[in-house]
């Protein structure tokens, strides 16, 4: 546990040093979208956005939080909540253990209390390195608890989604997390809570069809794939090619499902503005 924590801290400090130009490196990183190589330091200065084409590469939950929260304000909540294996699905427990070892995450969601430019809020961030950020019972429980905690403390809730949808290995119990999270968000909102839903690449399936689509304000990162059915399934169903840009954030904005597209470098200022606008009396 402590080892995981110090490894994570070291990694985040390294990234910060890269951004601040305190490290030199000749390594180059290839973009998964355009295939071009750019210096690793340049990627990091752009917060893991391709310097050539602007592709927003998926990033881990702790990394994202470290870029958004005020330094020193991060306090993890429910950090020990571990996943269950309700179907006793063959190989699942071993897979979970391997992923925990590899990523330092118990499951695909991290919840924390933190501040953005001084404004306090509850944050939940899905991490696509952990089984595609899919929602099983632990992720559903974490989102529900985040909403309940935010309500109890009268704080806004900010969720960054990145998910392939329901977690197949937990079967029907995963499906029920859609009802559970939607209910928790609904209750939080009906009691006056502010929920900012931030969609990142990719957000699909049961996560799109539950808490991710229920934000008071809907935001997304450029180019993020956002949808219910995946593009491959749709193409198989309708037997035709989908248009360029289909289900991308820009497409959703055009179709009325988003308030705004937020480049990665602007999350802090946009969230700070929105949190400030919702503070009592409109004043900090």
């Amino acid at each position, binding site marked *: 546990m402590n080892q995981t924590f110090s490894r994570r801290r070291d990694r985040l400090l390294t990234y910060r040093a890269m951004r601040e130009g305190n490290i030199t490196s000749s390594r180059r990183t290839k973009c998964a979208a355009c295939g071009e190589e750019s210096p690793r330091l340049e990627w990091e200065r752009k917060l893991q956005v391709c310097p050539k084409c602007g592709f927003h590469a998926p990033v881990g939950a702790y990394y994202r939080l470290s870029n958004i929260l005020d330094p020193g304000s991060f306090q993890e909540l429910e950090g020990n909540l571990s996943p269950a294996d*309700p179907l006793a699905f063959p190989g699942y427990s071993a897979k979970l253990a391997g992923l925990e070892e590899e990523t330092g995450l118990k499951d695909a969601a991290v919840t924390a209390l933190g501040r953005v430019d001084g404004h306090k809020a509850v944050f939940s961030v899905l991490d696509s390195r952990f089984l595609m950020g899919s929602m099983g019972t632990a992720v559903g429980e974490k989102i529900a608890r985040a909403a309940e905690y935010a309500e109890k403390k009268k704080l806004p809730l900010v969720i960054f989604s990145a998910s392939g949808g329901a977690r197949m290995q937990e079967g029907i*119990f995963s499906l029920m997390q859609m009802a559970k999270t939607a209910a928790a968000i609904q209750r939080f909102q009906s009691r006056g809570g502010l929920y900012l839903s931030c969609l990142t690449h990719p957000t699909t399936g049961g996560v799109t069809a539950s808490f*991710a689509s229920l934000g008071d304000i809907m935001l997304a990162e450029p180019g993020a794939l956002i949808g219910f059915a995946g593009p491959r399934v749709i193409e198989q169903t309708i037997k035709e090619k*989908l248009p360029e840009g289909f289900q991308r954030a820009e497409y959703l904005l055009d179709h009325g499902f988003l308030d705004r597209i937020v480049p990665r470098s602007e999350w802090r200022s946009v969230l700070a503005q929105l949190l400030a606008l919702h503070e009592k009396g409109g004043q900090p």
Partner: protein
Amino acid sequence: MSRYTPEEKVKLARRPDRPGTADFIGALFTDFFEQRGDRLCGEDGSILGGIARFHGRPVTVIGHRKGKNLEENLTCTFGMPSPEGYRKAQRLMRQAEKFGRPIITFVDTPGAYPGKEAEERGQGEAIAQCLALMSALEVPVISVVTGEGGSGGALALAVANRVLMLEHAVYSVLSPEGFASILWKDASRADEACGVMKLTAQDLRRGGIVQGVLREPEDGAHTNWAAVFRTVDAALTKELAALDKLKGPALARQRYEMFRAMGQGLPPAREEEP
């Protein structure tokens, strides 16, 4: 109860000659007045809904409709709703709450329609809003899974105070074909998927996902519709009487707490400060 294997049950649940939503409405309700359209842009035949009387009492009834012949199948997209269908359902449920009518839903769908237009009009958002709305309704809601309960498209009509299932109906996170294709990259292993998915009414009852299993005739619901109608009628009557004892906020609370508790084996929320 288990003379059929899970894969046999999937086949039974999908039989086109099983009674569907329109059949249940015709047999169990009187005075049915169909309501159409989402009041935004369209009408979706794959969700059938309206006002009717159940033993004389006005209720709102909503369900998936697969259609009984090819022509109907096509207008109903084989029971796979588009956002218009889910938004129509939301409209009908809000109205039911306004007029204090209980809501009864019949669930029978392979899943929400995975099409281009459905995505453009916000399939995910439409389902999410159904879930959120149903979770807080202050009228009794009873759902009966009559055939296939496929994925979020089924759950969108099944956030109920009581979820009942016919004995050979199935209810799952995804179709067995989709499940096998995602996990094993091989849709032909669907039969194997049926075995591990725990999608039968009996498994779901044990897992606390459904609250009642309704017995079917020996060889399945398609062999004796009248018997199925009697069973469903009796179950709805009983559950409705039980829910009538709860006031509006208590109904919403019971439903919330029931779904809130669905996640087995997790430790309780910690009370202490971070």
